[in-house]
């Protein structure tokens, strides 16, 4: 079974994000870049399927030079080869343009199943997996927390409000992975060393026959407003008095009730 896992390099969840002065993006200096955490579930599931059914795992990622480190991380976990799509035209790509580039690259490799993370933690769109499946014309199951494959039959479990549904489909398909699907492995040291020598193809948009043109554009980034300092209610020291004061402030100042 040949498997493709799409991974995105994102800022570490703990990284301090500063918006550029002109609002065109974020300051990249000092940021620790990591593999999108949901993509780790996809990579892990790929490796599990490979261990079970054999085949090859290919990592595909759209991103600038630094993205190579994330591809190597996936290779260190045990994936076999990588494709990096590094083209300035795609540096600010929206979900559609990204999915289009991924689809074009994936068409060049043989695949039975494709994994994406349920969403990327940086822009939080949760669309790439779905668009990718649409472009490739194959089924998709999003938010998978459990996956069973028997021949070409696929059964994926996804959580819904207060319950879980099991979706049946067939290979080839796109699965977007979420927490619960598995526990991503820690790369072994021989894995890390071998990863340095595994093949990664670097492609330009033109090599894939895509333009990288986005359908949408981020107009402006703004940081969230600074959290105002806390306030201690002092006017009246009885619980009733404090409650009344709180209600008043919530209504008049915060305008939430």
């Amino acid at each position, binding site marked *: 079974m040949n498997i493709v896992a799409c991974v995105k390099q994102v800022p*570490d969840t*703990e*990284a301090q994000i500063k918006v550029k002065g002109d609002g065109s993006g974020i300051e990249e200096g000092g940021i620790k870049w990591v593999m999108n955490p949901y993509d780790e579930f996809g990579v892990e599931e790929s490796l599990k399927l490979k261990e079970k059914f054999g085949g090859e795992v290919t990592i595909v990622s759209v991103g600038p030079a630094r993205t190579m480190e994330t591809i190597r991380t996936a290779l260190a976990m045990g994936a076999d080869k990588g494709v990096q799509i590094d083209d300035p035209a795609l540096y600010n790509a929206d979900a559609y343009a990204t999915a289009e580039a991924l689809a074009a690259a994936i068409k060049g490799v043989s695949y039975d199943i494709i994994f994406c993370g349920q969403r990327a933690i940086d822009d939080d769109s949760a669309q790439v997996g779905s668009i990718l499946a649409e472009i490739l014309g194959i089924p998709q199951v999003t938010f998978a927390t459990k996956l069973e494959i028997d021949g070409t039959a696929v059964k994926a479990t996804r959580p819904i409000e207060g319950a879980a549904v099991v979706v049946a489909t067939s290979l080839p398909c796109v699965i977007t992975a979420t927490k619960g699907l598995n526990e991503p492995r*820690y*790369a072994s*040291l021989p894995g*890390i*060393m071998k990863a340095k020598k595994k093949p990664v193809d670097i492609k330009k948009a033109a090599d894939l026959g895509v333009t990288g043109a986005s359908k949408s554009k981020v107009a402006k980034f703004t940081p969230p407003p600074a959290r105002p300092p*806390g306030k*201690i209610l002092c006017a009246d020291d009885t619980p009733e008095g404090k409650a009344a004061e709180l209600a008043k402030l919530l209504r008049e100042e915060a305008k939430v009730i």
Partner: protein
Amino acid sequence: MELSTFSIGHEGREVFWNAEHFEPILFMLTFVAMAIFAYGVYRRWLMWTAIGKPEDRTDDRNERIKALLKNGLLQIKTWSDPYPGVMHGLIFFGFVVLFFGAAFDATEFHVAEPLGVPFLVGKFYLFFSFLMDLFGLAVLGGVLMALDRRYLTKPDRLGYKGEPDNRPDDAIVLLLIAGIIVTGFIIEALRISVTWQQTPWEVWSFVGWTLAKAFTGVSPEAAKAMHKWAWWIHTAFALGFIAYIPYSRLMHIITTPANYFMATRKPIGQLEPIKDFENAESFGVGTIEEFTWKQIFDSDACTRCGRCQDGCPAYLTGKPLSPKKLVQDLKNYWLEKAPGAVASRKEQLIASGEGAANINPKLKALFAWLDKADRIVDENLPKGPEPTEKAMVGEVVELDELWACTNCMYCMENCSAAIEHVPKIIGMRQFKVLMEADFAPELQLTYRNMENNSNPWGIGAHLRADWGKELGVKTLAEDPNVEYLFYVGCAGSFDDRGKKVSVALAKILQTAGVSFGILGTEESCCGDSAMRGGNEYLYQTMAQANIEVMNGYGVKKIICTCPHGYNALKKDYPHFGGNFEVYHHTEIIAELIEKGKIKIKIPVDDVRFTYHDSCFLGRYNQLYDQPRRIIKAIPGARLVEMDRNHEKSFCCGAGGARMWMEEHGDRINDARAKQAIDVGAKTIAVGCPFCLTMMSDGLKFHGKEEEIVALDLAEIVWKGMGLEEEKAPVEVCQA
């Protein structure tokens, strides 16, 4: 000399009395016993050398000989535990004296007398006789103590989890020793019972003399006949003892002193770094062959005395780990694997022509002969256990054992045989982490956090210097011309309690006028948790990052508040080009107090302080005194010691990466907090942020957090100096 040649004023005894013609047979038997002994050692030698990677333990020879004399001959380590110390001392020193006595006898008979210069006569003989009997009694006393301990008192440390671990040779050896002494006394008594009228001075052989009374009424002929029998039995026991050495626990007579000679000369707890990650094929120790020969030899030096187990925090809180059991399990595994390894090594040597080619022809003949003997023995002796196919890591040493160790160093510090447990444990952890990447998910998260944010908590690396923002502490980037670098470490930078300690120390240093700076966000995690948790690769990444920055600023002296960083920077960073003078803050504070640079003004009202020795300060770095001196400088403070203190201190449970792992069952920190509560401490002083967390949590567990506080010594001094500004976390309503 004949009995008749002795008289009062010229006292002595006829060596070989009543055994005049036994000598040739004795010679022959001695030869046989020695041959059996030598052959046993030879077989063991083959086993010691058949498995394991090479390692040199012969450098620094003078120090090694000193260690050998100190602990092999003078038994210094065994004394550190009174009952077993005395017990072993009686047997050991008794035997040494008796051995020399036998040698004196032999010299007298074979050398001195024929040369006409007998020396075992007169006053010296009397003294000699007295001494022999005295030490004979000592040995018996020791044996009785040992029998009592092993079979009646039965302390847990001689077993495992309440189950005694007595083996047949434990009893055989004790009875054999007792037998040698008792028959010796009987021979003496029988001789005296026949000759006492001619040799009144034999009263100096006071045991024999007293015992001789038991034989009054026995005719001289009968006594002589009995004497002959007793003489042979004594000889059989004594020679049996020699022959039995390499085949029983007596082997420790050779292996334990040898192990002292070969004990590591490195600073305590220093670990050999893995070199050349790029080209190494494997990392850590997954199979017994990946241990060094010395690490394997260790297990053959273990006497199962159980001292290590007696203070192992993991064992004492019900974890499966016991350092003794670990060593013994490895030994048994080695014993199963060794015969096969010996056979294949022999084949290898024969095939390569090595071993035979450069050997002197006589030796060659000897080896050929020994090989033949080996074959005969192997074919005819009952077979040992079949070599197991068990995996060493995971089956022989179970993972729960492997990961329970806090690296507290109690076992190594207190082992009576200089066994090095901790590096073995770390080696096996390295295998699990680096080779198999199979280890606790919590620890995986910790390592990812260290990789991504250079701290085990995974808090944003950009927040590292925030604790000192309001204090005006400068970074080296702002001002590199300072005397000390304050290496804050992760706890001091990210943990709320730890940050308070950093603030306290910074204020103390500022008040004392010490010039210092920090690295700010250029600082990395020290890597100790990674190193001790088996992730040497990650550890080296962290260490190299720190060293590069520190060397970039030309750092010379460093102060650490965390003993883990302190130990790593001091002992392990030199491996990677980081050579600094590293101090723990308690060393600095103690010195500032002594020099009068700071003064603890605010007295406490007879508050009972206890000091919890952090393993990485105490056992790893012998910093026992400075922290206590600080407490003694607090006006009104009383220092009470917990039962387990100094070298025998009990770990808080956080070392060896355990800080980041789930602990199941009884918790080590709760056990330690209980010990502090039991001595009536009101303040538990610590010198380590991990200990601080652990002791605070332990106090909460026992519901004592209102009555007892755990404080870092920096905080104690800071309060005592009146530097602490109570700053409410939020604005409070004014009344």
